[in-house]
């Protein structure tokens, strides 16, 4: 009889059920979409922040001082210590390798440039990876300045890493009078200018060449001066600033296994022999602050969204039950107790919440995908564990929203209710 009551109520009052169901579906849709966006926004903004450049740098441990003014390196290229290019794939083997979005080795050199009748006796050249596939174990990852320096704009083509093609910074190109496609003599070697680089920084005055070419020019095969690493990190807190040497056991493990800039730098220095890794504070420190602010803002807004959708569901349920006073009166006149009436309503509410919750979860996931695609042009992943959580919230909110209305409904005197005087 109980089941039949609930079933018939759904069959016969389609319009009302549809209205209440629609409210629940909408509420759950908004809740799902906002929770999905809020849980993923940190990662998405973190990736956007990577467009400001690398946040970690790996240098040789026993390096002499850099002599650099305005981005131009004045140190003799053969001076100081080097890292070994063969060690670089080990970057992909560190604990947080999934958080490394890219890295680019750098090897500066000073060269003589000659194009047509113009000659520049001493110009800076930097060897690097443009977009090089790196193999570590079975993984192949493509990395280089294309990934770490997204503000670099190239008119023409990016050079291939195994070619004799180079990029010329736009200021230097103007002095030399070279265009994309021209031939250029670099310290006696023939090279082709595949593109002109506009970087808005010191690189506008440099030649950017494949790493192997720079190594050949300074006569040090396999040498790398420094490596810029772009990594997704967690904003630093007081725990992050602890010295790993002073930590012990489980606390050390927790520090090591949190993607703080310090921890990733520590692991990089571990992975590459004779190296020192440090965070580039201008980038690393500030992205923590920006990230915390944006995450906090979206979190608070998600709370507001949850509140608004809970209110919408409660309002719809209260209205739906209030309209059914006559029915309650009839049930009570036929001898139904308060418990029986309440349980019919709660069963209906639970059923509505589950159906509305499922549909809402589906639409909400689609909406989150859509938001991810259109704003960040990448998917927003929805953890499957969210489904039971959302359904539980939907049922609780629906119950809470109905509770007052149901209490008032079961408290009605059947006589008044049936005469429609309330």
């Amino acid at each position, binding site marked *: 009889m109980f089941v039949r009551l609930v079933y018939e109520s759904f069959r016969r009052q389609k319009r009302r059920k549809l209205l209440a169901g629609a*409210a629940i579906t*909408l509420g759950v849709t*908004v809740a799902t*979409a*906002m929770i999905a*966006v809020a849980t993923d926004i940190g990662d*998405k*903004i973190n990736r*956007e*922040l990577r467009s*400001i450049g690398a946040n970690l*740098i790996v240098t040789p441990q026993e*390096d*002499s*001082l*850099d*002599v*650099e*003014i*305005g*981005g131009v390196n*004045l*140190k003799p290229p053969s001076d100081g210590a080097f890292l070994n290019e063969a060690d670089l794939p080990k970057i992909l083997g560190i604990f947080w390798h999934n958080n490394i979005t890219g890295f680019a080795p750098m090897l500066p050199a000073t060269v003589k440039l000659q194009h047509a009748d113009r000659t520049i006796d001493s110009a800076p050249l930097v060897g690097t990876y443009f977009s090089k596939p790196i193999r570590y174990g079975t993984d192949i990852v493509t990395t280089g300045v294309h990934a770490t320096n*997204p*503000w670099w704009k190239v008119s023409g083509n990016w050079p291939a890493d195994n070619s004799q093609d180079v990029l010329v910074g736009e200021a230097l190109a103007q002095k030399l009078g070279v265009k994309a496609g021209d031939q250029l003599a670099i310290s006696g070697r023939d090279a082709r200018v595949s593109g002109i680089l506009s*970087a*808005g*920084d010191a690189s506008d005055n440099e030649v950017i060449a494949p790493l192997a070419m720079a190594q050949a020019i300074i006569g040090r095969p396999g040498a790398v001066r420094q490596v810029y690493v772009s990594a997704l990190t967690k904003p630093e807190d007081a725990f992050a600033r602890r010295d790993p040497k002073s930590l012990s056991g489980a606390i050390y493990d927790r520090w090591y296994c949190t993607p703080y800039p310090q921890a990733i730098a520590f692991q990089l220095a571990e992975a590459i022999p004779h190296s020192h890794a*440090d*965070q*580039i*504070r*201008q980038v690393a*420190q*500030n992205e923590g*602050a*920006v990230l915390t*602010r*944006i995450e*906090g*803002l*979206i979190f*608070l*807004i*998600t709370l*507001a*969204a949850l*509140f*608004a959708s809970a*209110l*919408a569901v409660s*309002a*719809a349920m209260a*209205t739906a039950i*209030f*309209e059914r006073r006559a029915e309650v009166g009839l049930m009570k006149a036929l001898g139904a107790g308060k418990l029986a009436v309440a349980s019919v309503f709660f069963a209906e509410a639970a059923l509505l919440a589950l159906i509305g919750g499922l549909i809402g979860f589906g639409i909400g996931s689609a*909406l989150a995908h859509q*938001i991810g695609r259109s*704003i960040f042009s990448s998917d927003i992943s929805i953890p499957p564990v969210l489904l039971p959580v959302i359904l539980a919230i939907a049922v609780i909110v629906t119950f809470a929203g109905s509770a007052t209305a149901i209490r008032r409904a079961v408290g009605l005197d059947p006589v008044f209710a049936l005469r*429609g005087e309330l």
Partner: protein
Amino acid sequence: MSHAAQDLAASRAKGPHTSMFLRMLVRAAILRRGRALSALFAMVVAAAVATAMLTLYVDVQSKLQREFRNYGANIVAVGKGGASLPPDSLSQVDSVLSGRGVSAPFGMIVARTTDGQPIVVAGADFDRVKQLDKWWQVTTWPTAPNQALLGVRANSTVSRKGQPFDLSFQGKTLHLTPAGTVRTGAAEDSRIYISLDDFVKWTGVPPSTIEVAATGSPAEIAATLNRVAQALPTADVRPVRKIVEGEARVLGKTRSTLLAAAALIILTAALCVLSTLMGWVFDRRRDFAIMKALGASGRLLGSFFAAEAVALGAIGALVGFVLGLVIAAWIGHANFHAAVTPRLSVLPIVLIGSMAVTLVSSILPISLLRRVQPAVILRGE
């Protein structure tokens, strides 16, 4: 009919017609306090949420721009071809900025340590650097003349135990006392910073670079850049593109996300109002039927319910606006540690939006009921 009754009828007929209308409006709200209050509550919440979201949407740009200024300079002016800047450059830049940003001059040379190693020495205005480059991790800032701030790597080369040391530049020697160290993870770690006065006195080289962190929107920053370039005709003035572009990207995406969230939340809140209000109006179909049976025209009824809706929308919007500003201010305080400026421009949007929603939600049931005979409604069918 008696004389007195005739007088009464006459005076009532002459009396202001609107009083009955107003009385019905007020009584309808007072007699069904519960339902009226719940409708008003829904309206207030919706208006508050809408106000808070719109205010935050407008304000988040300036709040995040402030965070991004901690990345330091977004404009750099360098003397053309490595030349020094004219002596009045800094005051020129400051007058262009007029408080909307921070600027700091730098001079740089390569000096030699006593064992002949080359090292970059920079002259800087420490008070300005403190404001511009907030990410510098400095142990102690120099305060007295001939004190130096050493990059962590420079420190281990020139002055291992905090001993005073000498530097030479073009035959002139400068005796310096280390005050503290600076760590940035970048080129600064290999440099020695001294005060600009010491630097000019020692080397005779005036500053060659001015770094500027201009505040404002991308368009305002571009305008500042142009004006700095006009004020310093002998300098190369460039934007720091990675900072400018990164900022624009992150800001744009954050604002889009916020807009999507705001649209969803406002939609939900509006539907909440819609369902509550429609339920309330629908519940009063008996009042409606009685008025109609007593001879009220369809137009009068429509205007009655419309006036009610507009009043509810306006009151709800005003209360909600104030409440929403409080919420926005709280979020600003909790998340950005700064006040959110109340935007009066949001008020008309919220007000009109609220009244539109309430109008729709009361006109819709009325137009449904209008077709029904009053007798049918009064019989409870």
